């Protein structure tokens, strides 16, 4: 009825000018999306083309790097290093970040909460090398040597604001009626938070944590003077350790073609790891939302 009345003013067909504006704006949007998407696609294609041969080289996944000039070798040291450094960093950052996020959402409508939010935002804006300096001064200088642990701590601090903000956002989106339903049954606030609100927001919290991990895995600057790099396969977190991003950084700068190829392959592996993490996060969220 209402629709009919609107149409009745200017006949049944849309005025020409509105059709034109519609087309124009639609076209602009497609253009903007392309401008944003094309570089990403080109980059992925480049990494794939240049990285695949190196990845298919025998020993890439199973061997440590060979000395410069010796053909062959792999990046086992870096694979283990990235997984271990990011793993330990996540073990440190996820629980702390999630707890701060819970605090901000459920108890943080006050000055304390605002201060924490402000500090977290400042940290989000810091260049990532600053976190490397943090790891260096706090851990490397006090223990007197480079170590994977110092890198994990630097990455944990880098991940913290991402995780706590994602957690807070996910929790704030949980409708208040759920909190009231729990409290109306006589449940204490902390139980409602942990047993109802957090499970309801788990998808968002896990996604935030995985995105933070993906970001940490790709960081190079915080590792330069913390993990430092190590051509030996090292699993002891107190020792210097390699990482995929460090392999890319170092090997890209040497004149040996096999090492450059290795750098491309390490780049492809890193992209694949990050993409896999993101896809897993999405699948997981979809599953628990059903």
């Amino acid at each position, binding site marked *: 009825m209402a629709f009919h009345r609107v149409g009745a003013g200017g006949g049944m067909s849309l005025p020409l000018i509105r059709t034109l504006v519609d087309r124009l704006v639609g076209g602009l949007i497609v253009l903007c999306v392309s401008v944003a998407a094309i570089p990403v696609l080109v980059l992925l294609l480049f990494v794939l083309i240049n990285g695949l041969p190196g990845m298919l080289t025998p020993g890439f996944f199973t061997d440590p790097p060979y000395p410069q000039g010796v053909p062959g070798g792999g990046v086992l040291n870096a694979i283990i290093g990235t997984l271990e450094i990011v793993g330990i960093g996540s073990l440190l950052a996820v629980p702390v970040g999630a707890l701060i996020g819970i605090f901000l959402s459920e108890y943080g409508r006050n000055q304390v909460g605002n201060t924490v939010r402000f500090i977290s935002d400042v940290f989000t804006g810091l260049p990532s090398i600053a976190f490397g300096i943090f790891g260096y001064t706090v851990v490397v200088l006090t223990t007197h040597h480079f170590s994977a642990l110092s890198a994990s701590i630097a990455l944990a601090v880098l991940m913290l604001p991402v995780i706590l903000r994602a957690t807070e956002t996910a929790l704030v989106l949980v409708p208040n009626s759920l909190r009231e339903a729990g409290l109306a*049954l006589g449940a204490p606030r902390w139980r409602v938070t942990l047993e109802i609100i957090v*499970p309801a927001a788990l998808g968002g919290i896990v996604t935030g944590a995985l995105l933070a991990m993906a970001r940490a895995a790709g960081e190079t600057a915080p590792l330069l003077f913390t993990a430092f790099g190590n051509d030996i396969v090292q699993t002891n977190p107190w020792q210097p350790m390699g990482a995929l991003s460090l392999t890319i950084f170092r090997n890209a700068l040497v004149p040996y073609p096999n090492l450059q190829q290795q750098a491309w392959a390490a780049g492809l592996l890193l992209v694949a790891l990050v993409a896999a993490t993101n896809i897993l996060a999405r699948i997981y969220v979809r599953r628990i939302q059903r």
Partner: protein
Amino acid sequence: MIATASMQTKVAPPPLRDVDAEIKLDARHVDFFYGDFQALHDASLAVQARKITALIGPSGCGKTTFLRVFNRMHDLVPGTRASGEVLLDGHNVLSPDTDVINLRRQVGMLFQRANPFPKSIYDNVAYGPHILGWSKIQIDQVVEESLKDTGLWDEVKDRLRRSARRWIRSPRCASRNSCKNSRSGIRS
């Protein structure tokens, strides 16, 4: 304003047919404010024990607001203020020394709109007793009883452990968090 006026004039203690009627809950001269907005003007209501009392009024006249005062749900909304007295078994619910958690365990509340927890059907029904620390056997029993009382048992008994979300969209969903486990209940 018409609405609040009707609250003032129409809410009065129900006529006591039974002279010995036991008053379970007695709200006296309750004023309620959302910030500067006064939603309740001197509202009084006596509720008898073991009787169903219905509160009727036009939309927005303050029924929900009034009911929420009875178990201090308004504490959760910043900037609200209630004055007057709400006596539950003689104790003023509005006094600052009231243990609100205990109060809410005694004054159950069903909301205007169903709001299932994102948990299984079983966990939804069991959450109240679970909070009270009942044993698994007791909870199993009360879940079955509650679902039988509401006529849902046959429909849901095979999927108690599955998410309540889909179930709750069906038309027969109003009976979650049954008030039977509380000594008195309010249904908004």
